[in-house]
């Protein structure tokens, strides 16, 4: 009888243990990393290393979902529509966060952040507003240091060889003079290129707020740090000057005349030594990232003033999709990623010794035996954690962290920082306007149009017919409402 009782007791104990263990099975958080689509063999090892931290801390395991950027928009739409489990997805990179929110892909995060995101609140402060639409928080910025200026990246080796010094900051006129020098000394090398013209690069020449459009479909605000008037960029004197300048550069042979069709990327031309440089985003984070594309040292200078804006913060954001099974755990993990440097480093750089090695304080390079052309892990488009706590790759130096902080502290705040435009009421006009822009803007911006005045007139005429003024009115109305609050 005693034996039976003890057996029974043991059995209940075992059963209750199983039940307890079952109730506290760690929740698996699926987090995206957006890459070029290459396979990374070290992902399982990295997941294991992260789990070793996250299971004791918040009882969560992590699964890294590697998504190639060409399939990204479609893949996450399909996953969410199909109810497939995903817990943390990147908004902004391919699908604008505002669209994901209005299409019902993302869960509201206000309460989750208030209850489970203390470190997120501390890190981002008011910047969190950039993830809000009509007062509801839908996404958390992936990076707290997103101040940007328009900049210019160039082949430093070639500059030294030709005795060219690129001043910092540089003006567009100074750049034109540099292109002329290059044309003279090395006629086979192009100064720069406008690429395919499919995304508009005028924001590297002028301080612009584009309200989330990578062309200027929603209207723009020039000098957004002191101005809140929204205008049609394509009808401005600035745009005309921009187009005329490019036409002149084509005529002078500063740029390849077949860049719209050749399929050669700007960075490929620079890497091959056929081109001096190109305009790009500037921030202390950019130079170390872009250096990886080149075998020679590169230089980077600023063209426009550095500004913190909603667009910058919305470039990369973390959202919790409606198909997430346990939003609380997803938020707990997101918070841990910003709080815990080890988790952030594992997701950003992999495992020390296997993927990278420290060369200086906070500065890393490839671990011994890693083939840089096929690394076991690589972070490409996503950002994980607090960049102040994440190791940076060479050529960043130990000064990097101070530079990044100073750059962001000194940046001007856009007057519309925290405001997002919801284009839902004018979706019809936006579609029509985007189609018109795709037809006219690339050739104009690549300097391929001979009669600029006539082309700009037709272009703007079509834009007005497609309804750009109604979009701008709606945008200005929403902005006024937002500012009144």
């Amino acid at each position: 009888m005693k034996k039976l009782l003890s057996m029974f007791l043991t059995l209940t104990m075992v059963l209750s243990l199983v039940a307890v263990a079952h109730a506290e099975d760690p929740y698996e958080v699926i987090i995206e990393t957006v890459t070029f689509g290459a396979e990374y063999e070290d992902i399982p090892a990295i997941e294991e290393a992260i789990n070793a931290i996250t299971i004791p801390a918040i009882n969560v395991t992590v699964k890294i979902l590697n998504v190639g950027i060409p399939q990204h928009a479609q893949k996450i739409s399909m996953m969410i529509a199909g109810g497939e489990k995903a817990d943390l997805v990147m908004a902004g990179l391919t699908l604008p966060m505002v669209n994901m929110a209005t299409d019902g892909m993302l869960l509201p995060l206000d309460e989750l952040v208030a209850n489970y995101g203390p470190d997120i609140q501390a890190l981002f402060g008011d910047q969190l507003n950039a993830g809000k639409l009509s007062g509801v928080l839908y996404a958390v910025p992936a990076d707290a240091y997103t101040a940007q200026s328009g900049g210019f990246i160039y082949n430093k080796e070639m500059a030294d060889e030709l005795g060219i010094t690129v001043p910092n900051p540089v003006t567009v006129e100074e750049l034109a003079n540099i292109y002329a020098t290059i044309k003279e000394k090395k006629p086979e090398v192009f100064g720069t290129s406008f690429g395919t013209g499919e995304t508009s690069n005028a924001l590297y020449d002028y301080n612009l707020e584009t309200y989330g459009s990578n062309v200027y479909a929603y209207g723009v605000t020039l000098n957004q740090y002191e101005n809140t008037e929204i205008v049609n960029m394509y009808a401005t004197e600035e745009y005309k000057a921009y187009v005329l300048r490019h036409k002149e550069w084509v005529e002078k042979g500063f740029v390849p005349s077949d860049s719209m069709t050749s399929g050669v990327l700007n960075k490929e031309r620079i890497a091959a030594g056929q081109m001096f440089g190109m305009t790009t985003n500037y921030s202390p984070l950019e130079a170390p990232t872009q250096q990886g594309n080149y075998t020679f040292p590169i230089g980077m200078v600023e063209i426009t003033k550095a500004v913190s804006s909603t667009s910058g913060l919305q470039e990369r954001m973390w959202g919790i999709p409606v198909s997430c099974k346990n939003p609380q755990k997803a938020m707990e993990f997101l918070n841990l990623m910003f709080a815990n440097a080890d988790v952030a480093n594992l997701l950003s750089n992999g495992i020390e010794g296997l993927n990278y090695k420290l060369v200086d304080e906070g500065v890393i390079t490839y671990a011994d035996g890693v083939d840089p052309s096929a690394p076991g892990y690589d972070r490409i488009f996503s950002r994980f954690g607090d960049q102040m706590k994440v190791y940076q790759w060479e050529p960043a130096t130990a000064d990097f962290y101070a530079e990044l902080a100073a750059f962001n502290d000194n940046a001007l705040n856009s007057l519309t920082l925290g405001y997002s435009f919801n284009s839902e009421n004018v979706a019809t006009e936006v579609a029509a306007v985007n189609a018109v822009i795709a037809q006219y803007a690339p050739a104009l911006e690549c300097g391929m149009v001979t009669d600029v005045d006539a082309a700009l007139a037709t272009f703007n005429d079509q834009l007005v017919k497609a309804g750009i003024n109604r979009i701008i009115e709606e945008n200005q109305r929403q902005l006024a409402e937002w500012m009144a609050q």
Partner: protein
Amino acid sequence: MDQIKRFLPFYIMALPGIIYLIINNYMPLVGLQVAFKRFNYGKGIWGSPWNGIKNFEFLFSSNSAQRIIRNTLLYNVAFILIGIVIGVAAAILLNEVRQKRPLKIYQTSILLPYLMSMVIISYLAYVFLGTNTGVINGVIRRLGGANINWYNEPKYWPALLIFIHVWKTLGFNMILYYSSLVGFSQDYYEAAELDGATKWQQITKITLPLLRPTIITLLILQLGQIFRSDFGLFYQVPMNQGALFDVTDTIDTFVYRALLKTPNIGMSSSAGFIQSVVGFIFIMTANGIIRKMSPSDSLF
């Protein structure tokens, strides 16, 4: 009842196909409602609110509407007509090749472009049409002429697109006609030869009439696609050049470009919905006309 019993084995044999059709072709019909809804991922297809014909507005409110409809229809009419003429001609010529080895070589080489991706074809075209590096401009320069900026001159593109489409699809069309041709009894031709018919007379009096049902079937099927366009051909091959949109923009490319920046499932479904409805009307009308003219040739 008796009949069902008698045909039961056949129904069972058809079952996998029927199930496939239901899953693949009939169940998705439910999704057509998305074209009339403000789609919301959280609420799903059934839960999303209706928004009438608002999704269709962007296709017709823009001033591109006339252009994209004209391009889509006219190119397809040209593709269908030229495709039939050249496909039938190629099949008849191939049928006259009696030696095995050359026959295989011709067949394969004509079919090859059909198997290529449009992205590859767009770069093949670029090899010829590139402004500075293209073969054609190279020849023009050699002959003392000036470069033609092919990707900036709309006037060349209707001919270029028709040529590329016919070149690409010829092989497949030809096989369809050729497979009917080889099935024709040789008796007709032997009898005709005894009566002194020329090759041309044999083609017009025997081959073409025998081929008529095949041609009509393919014609009706192609008419169902008349409001659709080969995205690769109209987007990749002209390298998405704005200067060419007047002659290269079709419904599919317009929808892609308009919604690339702000993806909207409702709006893209509305375009697909219209394409399907117009295709359906075309198939029914074409089949109706043919049934009136010669009932035995109609598809259903």
